[in-house]
């Protein structure tokens, strides 16, 4: 596998019980591992509530104990800052950029909080299958 290639995986994985957060894509590059998310507000809050991401979030793979730390985010604030929605019909797309995981097929966990509640953005067993990866055309 050419390390310089940026690989894109379409995931479209919804977790349970809160199904309003979806992992859409993973992009594996030399510089980072990017995870793209979609989130839509629910009726739980009159104005749709808020979202934020813990700066201590990390990825881990099923093949090692290594933690791949969150480097930066795109369109979601790091806690304690937060993005307040304006209505319970709002929707939001955002990306998280982690330290690069090895480019090989594996399963990854996204850990925002070690002992999570349903509202935390933890995800487990995300399948990274490089046989289904597409290579991104770099500009």
């Amino acid at each position, binding site marked *: 596998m050419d390390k310089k290639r940026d690989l*894109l995986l*379409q*995931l*479209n994985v919804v977790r349970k019980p809160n199904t309003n957060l*979806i992992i*859409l*894509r993973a*992009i594996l590059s030399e510089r980072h591992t990017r995870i*793209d998310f*979609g989130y*839509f507000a629910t009726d739980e809050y009159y104005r749709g509530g808020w979202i934020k991401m813990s700066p201590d979030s990390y990825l881990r793979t099923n093949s090692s104990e290594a933690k791949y730390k969150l480097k930066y985010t795109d369109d979601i604030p790091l806690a304690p800052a937060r993005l307040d929605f304006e209505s319970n*019909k709002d*929707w939001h*797309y955002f*990306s998280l950029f982690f330290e690069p995981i090895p480019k090989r097929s594996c399963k990854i966990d996204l850990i925002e909080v070690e002992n999570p509640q349903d509202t935390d953005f933890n995800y487990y067993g995300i399948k990274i299958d490089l046989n289904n990866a*597409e*290579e*991104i*055309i770099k500009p």
Partner: protein
Amino acid sequence: MPINKNAYRRYKVIDACLRNKMRRYPNMKELLAALEEKLGVNTTAETVQKDIAVMKMLPPDGFDAPIKFNRTHLGYEYTNPDFSINGVSLNSYDVDSINEAIEVISAIGGSRVSEKFTHAIEKVLSNAQELNNKEVKRKIIETDYISEGRGFEHFDLLYSACRDRVPVSFIHYSYSRREFKALIIHPVLLKEFNNHWYVIGFSEAHQALRTFGLDRVKAPEPIYKVFQDTSSDVIDAYLNNVYGVYPLPNCTKEKITLHANAMITNYFRAQKIHESQHVEMREQGRFHHHF
């Protein structure tokens, strides 16, 4: 010998004067006046004569400009009327025409065609800048286009993908289903309807042609993949019997008739709302509009 910047600016002004078909055969006094007007500095006749001599020299020192003093009209001219010291030969008519075209494009949505167009055209016109420095810009055309529509930032990428036949992965959000999805499409067409832009292409998830509003498209990424092309016939069939951009799924073509009085019929006649529209006059000043 390299040409210094001030001299080059003078050459461009002299070049523009010699190509100005509205004011042919400029004499020395007119050249000096143009230089003062365009560059804001006084220039001597001696300098201009030296400039003309340099312009007549062969490259790289000069431009091999065919400048001649016309004794009949007592002024200077290019013996080859198409000559310009710039590679692109634009006369004042050309520049005016381009400016008019830019104005029209800007009015009907120049910003939709992105800044790339503006940069390219500025490059062309920079060589004729002296002819183009109309400082007061008065709006002549106005449309109901509202700029800064969401998703328009991807127009360039999707345009290139359609042109070069490159599959694109992007995130799509469905307003009606409240659903996100990462999709791969093989885009073939960008279409505007009611001030909204849409990309149409073969969707791998749907295994069919689909339309996606640019305002709901996020993070498009072009990918290396064999392009699944769609023929023009299929695209036409997809769009022809539709009002707007979204064909109704699993529906067959139907005949639609609208009844209107004579006054309303004026509007229908003035602007068709679909290619298939035709009008039929009925009794007592009533009209049927068939689609």
